[in-house]
């Protein structure tokens, strides 16, 4: 099966000299959901920012058969929908409807098409009633759903979600698990929440010091790295 995303030997260094990615290899196949786990600062977010060309390092990133270069950024960004950790950064238009329609309009849809797509995406996340509201009037959970609607309205083939459970209460997390399960796209989910990862992901990749050091089932990664909630964590953490 042809991979939707192929990453080979990706290396990236920030301007201050910090080596954030040190030779990452990764594949994502159609329909699968992969959780990216690992300690803070291990390179997970830096990695996903490369998938739609927001950062550009050495190595090769191929998305749906297109190598990510400056020339085809618009097309790559149509294929990869990125949900940021902080929804406030993603909701910048005056109303929820306008914000959700931003992606389709930027892709060249007519206002009518964009509005139809935006309303459909809002219905998908259960936020139709909030269409006319200003983003700052939404609760944290609603902001998260509105931001997700903004990504879905772009009709991407791949969803990349950076810490999607941040700010969500347990009910909100359950709703998100159900929603993600209903979406047909392949997904990459950056998370620290292993229970959430176990509920949504088919497999996991574990980042450490800018490299993927292990891949396998979420349960396997949990066991090998002691990557579990505090209550379930063994007293002696394996190195």
């Amino acid at each position, binding site marked *: 099966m042809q991979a939707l995303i192929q990453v080979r030997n990706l290396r990236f260094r920030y301007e201050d000299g910090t080596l954030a990615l040190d030779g990452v290899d990764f594949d994502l196949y159609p329909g699968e959901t992969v959780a990216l786990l690992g300690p803070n600062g291990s390179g997970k977010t830096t990695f996903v920012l490369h998938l739609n060309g*927001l950062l550009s390092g050495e190595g090769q990133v191929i998305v749906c058969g297109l190598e990510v270069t400056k020339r085809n950024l618009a097309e790559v960004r149509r294929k990869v929908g990125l949900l940021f950790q902080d929804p406030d*950064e993603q909701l910048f238009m005056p109303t929820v409807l306008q914000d959700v329609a931003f*992606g389709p309009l930027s892709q060249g849809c007519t206002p009518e098409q964009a509005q139809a797509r935006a309303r459909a995406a809002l219905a998908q996340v259960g936020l139709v009633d909030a269409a006319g509201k200003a983003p700052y009037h939404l609760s944290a959970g609603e902001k998260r759903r509105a931001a997700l609607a903004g990504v879905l309205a772009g009709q991407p083939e791949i969803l990349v979600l950076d810490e999607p459970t941040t700010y969500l209460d347990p009910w909100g997390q359950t709703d998100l698990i159900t929603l993600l399960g209903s979406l047909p796209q392949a997904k990459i989910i950056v998370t620290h929440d292993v229970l959430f990862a176990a509920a949504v992901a088919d497999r996991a990749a574990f980042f450490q010091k800018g490299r993927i050091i292990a891949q396998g089932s979420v349960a396997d990664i949990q066991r090998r790295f002691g990557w579990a909630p505090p209550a379930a964590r063994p007293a002696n953490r394996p190195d």
Partner: protein
Amino acid sequence: MHHATLDQWARGSSALHRRDARVKWLVLVAYLAALSATRSLFPMCVLGFAALAAGAIRLGRLPFAGVLARAGVVAPFAGVITLFTWLGGEGGRALAVLVRSYLSAVAVLVLVGTTPLPTLLSGLTSLGVPRFLVLVVQFLYRYLFVLSEQAQHMRLAAASRGWQAGRWRPDPAGFRAAAGVAAALFLSSQAKAQAVHRAMLARGFQGRLVTLAPPALSIADLWFLAAGVGACAGLWLAANLFG
């Protein structure tokens, strides 16, 4: 986050709230033009303009006392001009300046109090105001809430570590601390701006912002426009004929 009073008023559902922002802008412009173009503001004329403003407050179900008190914000500015005009021996003109400023402020408050700012800005765009100007105000307004929230969090964090607002002393150490806080807020707003730009790029932004088309005006909007502009024109005509 405690939203401003005006923002709360603007979320009402009165007949005036439901009118299209473009129409409300046009009526406001007609009102301000009529008010400023009226040569002499004799008492009946002032009463006419005040009655129009009062009617709008009533139609928008806004609190009279609240609107009248907030309109007083123009008093210091208008007051200075009034004072100098008065001292220049033109008592009548001085009073007219004060009345015009106050009634203008009331009218603007009625507009802002019955229309959420995002809708107001969309209305401006539809009326042909340069998109760039509207965008700047839009982003400023949107992130003012985020920054204000951030400032409140910083204040809480400082208070939790023993800082007391009332006990701040304007000494060098106090100024250094305040400057540090301001710098931190500035840096976080810079980081926020970069993050927003990144989020825009991620959703396909290529430098040109396209927005949804505004909805068509309803019959009620057109009636409101005709009645509003007609009343303002009528008042102006009457004032200039009988004044």
